[in-house]
């Protein structure tokens, strides 16, 4: 059991973690999610007593890490796969850690077998690939056979087989009654591994709930509608009809429309009444990745932009975009993966009763989301 209360860490003027409180329970895999630079690693270091919190405290099993009676036998951690002396062989590295913790030396060969490094145990870790380094780091974490395990980005650099192995290892460790706390910036990975999620952005807590609650609270479903591209008038007509009926319409970059707030049959009826032909009418469900993206959108520190090469391009043809349409809100593009963020739900995603099944029909939600509204109300204000 890891318990953080009001954890805050400032480095000079920069606040890395602000007023973070959470509990990590035994028996389940708890995912720790956040964009790059959101304070995940800082939090992990504070849990391990490597950094002192500016305010607040964090305990493991009721004790601060540095006061734990037998720390290496109670807590194992993979912080950084590269945090080994590259000139030392894998076995010597683990042996020195085992000796330091008073763990019998045969345990070293045991964990080398567990992570599959027994064949390269005598090789200097400098020559290890990123994946092998991760395995070595995981071996070090498992060395003390501890009750509490922390993994910072354990699947970085692993091949698919290795990712599957880590996923199953986490689940197995949790099933044995251990506390497993895994940080990642990959929602898709956590969706498969974790049971519970703690999401932070800019050092502040954004969500602390089970994975299923997270999905139901954050998913927003929509319909994709496409009218014949050859007849821009139809599209205009349908847009007007849909908006009149209470739907929200947004343009997608390929010319399709993203409609929320109306069930599929109703869209079809409206199109029929307006005498508009449809080329596409398809239901879409937001993935966990999208939910996560939307949640952390306002909290991304390092945002990539398109490399437009603008000054190198020949002047663009007029009338290339929009088919002469009136300007419509264009769906914001989410960085990194190229997913489109669904519109934010009308209510605070965390205020809603967790565990509740999503509303009857995917598009029947009466709460019409407002496109373009700022992110959920508890998006961190800049803590600096």
């Amino acid at each position, binding site marked *: *059991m890891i318990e953080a209360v009001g954890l805050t860490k400032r480095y000079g003027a920069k606040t890395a973690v602000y007023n973070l409180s959470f509990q990590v*329970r*035994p*028996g*389940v895999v708890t995912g720790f999610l956040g964009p790059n630079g959101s304070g995940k690693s800082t939090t992990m*270091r504070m849990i*391990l*007593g*490597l*950094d*002192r919190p500016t305010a607040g405290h964090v305990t493991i099993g009721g004790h601060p890490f*540095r006061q734990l*009676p*037998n*720390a*290496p*036998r109670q*807590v194992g*951690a993979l*912080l*950084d796969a*590269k*945090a*080994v*002396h*590259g*000139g*030392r*062989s894998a076995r*010597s*590295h683990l*042996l*020195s*850690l085992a*000796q*330091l*913790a*008073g*763990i*019998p030396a045969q*345990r070293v060969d045991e964990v080398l077998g567990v992570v599959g490094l027994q064949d390269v145990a005598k090789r200097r870790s400098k020559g290890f690939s990123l994946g092998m380094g991760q395995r070595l780091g995981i071996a*070090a974490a498992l*060395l*003390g*056979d*501890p*009750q509490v395990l922390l993994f910072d980005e354990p699947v970085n650099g692993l091949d698919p087989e290795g990712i599957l192995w880590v996923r199953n290892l986490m689940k197995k460790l949790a099933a*044995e*009654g*251990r506390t497993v706390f895994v940080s990642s910036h990959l929602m898709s990975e956590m*969706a*498969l591994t974790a*049971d*519970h999620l703690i999401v932070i952005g800019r050092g502040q807590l954004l969500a602390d*709930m*089970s*994975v*299923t*609650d997270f999905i139901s609270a954050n998913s927003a479903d929509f319909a994709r509608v496409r009218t014949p591209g050859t007849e821009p008038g139809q599209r205009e007509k349908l847009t007007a009809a849909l908006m009149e009926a209470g739907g929200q319409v947004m343009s997608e970059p390929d010319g399709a429309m993203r409609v929320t707030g109306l069930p599929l049959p109703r869209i079809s009826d409206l199109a029929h009444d307006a005498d508009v032909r449809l080329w596409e009418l398809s239901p879409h469900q937001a993935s966990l990745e999208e939910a996560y993206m939307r949640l952390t959108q306002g909290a991304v520190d390092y945002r990539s932009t398109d490399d437009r090469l603008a000054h190198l391009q020949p002047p663009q043809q007029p009338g290339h975009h929009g088919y002469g349409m009136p300007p419509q809100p264009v769906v914001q593009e989410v960085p990194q993966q190229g997913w489109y963020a669904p519109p934010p739900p009308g209510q605070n995603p965390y205020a809603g009763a*967790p565990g509740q099944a999503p509303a009857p029909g995917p598009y029947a939600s009466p709460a019409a989301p407002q496109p373009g509204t700022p992110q959920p109300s508890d998006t961190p204000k800049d803590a600096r």
Partner: protein
Amino acid sequence: MTAPAPHHAPAPHSYVSPIPVRRANLGDALASEWTKIRSVRSTLWTLGVMILLMLVIGLGVAAIAASSEAPMGDESALGFGFFGMLPASICVITLGVLTIASEYGTGMIRTTLTACPSRARVLTAKAIVFFLLVFTVTTVVAAIVGAGQVALVDTAASPSASDWLRATVGAGAYLAMLGLLSLALGTLIRHSAGAITVMIGLLLLPLVAALFMFSEALKSVQEWLFTYAIPSQMISLYAAQPPFGENGPSGWEPLLIMTGVAGVALAGAFALLNNRDV
């Protein structure tokens, strides 16, 4: 996807490891540091180069002295050990700094301090293992070199028992203490190249600066530097009478001075390591 655990479920049974739990102590940390120091090549390289320098230079100087017919007076041949000791000290400084700064450089320190949250125990173990290793190696090599020097230079006075002790155990302890000072500095600076540079500057610059203090006004500073610079202290170690200045150190006194300096630096390292974020 796995089913989530109910939010307020009673805490499941906690895991109990079948491996017997034993409280780790300083002995475990010593074993660990010994494994660490012997499993990296930098130890082999620095100590190997150090042994080579002490042997080649120490015996080479003795051979040159033996071939010259100039009388040595009541000086013993053991004093030639200084010429090997000076370059050897650079190797010891490097090893001392690397013992801790390489952990900072690679990030290993975080792994180490996760496996043993007691900073004091880690640093103590490092200091003891490093000291014993350097002290043993340099003492043995100094004894071999000394025996060779005494055998080669037959024009010199034969050294007394206390001369022998200072030229072997004294020299070994002095170099090991200089190494501890480097280890403390490596802990404070946390950067290999930076700490080695500072230590080499500390070793050589005072003497170089003193060489060029021609002004009469700086006479006292020059004299103090000539007396207490590290190379001067090494020479004093071999001498029964103060070789520089009337009240300068001689005999075992340089070792006491270096022990004091290293002790203060180590105390600072302990305090900082304990309170600083890793």
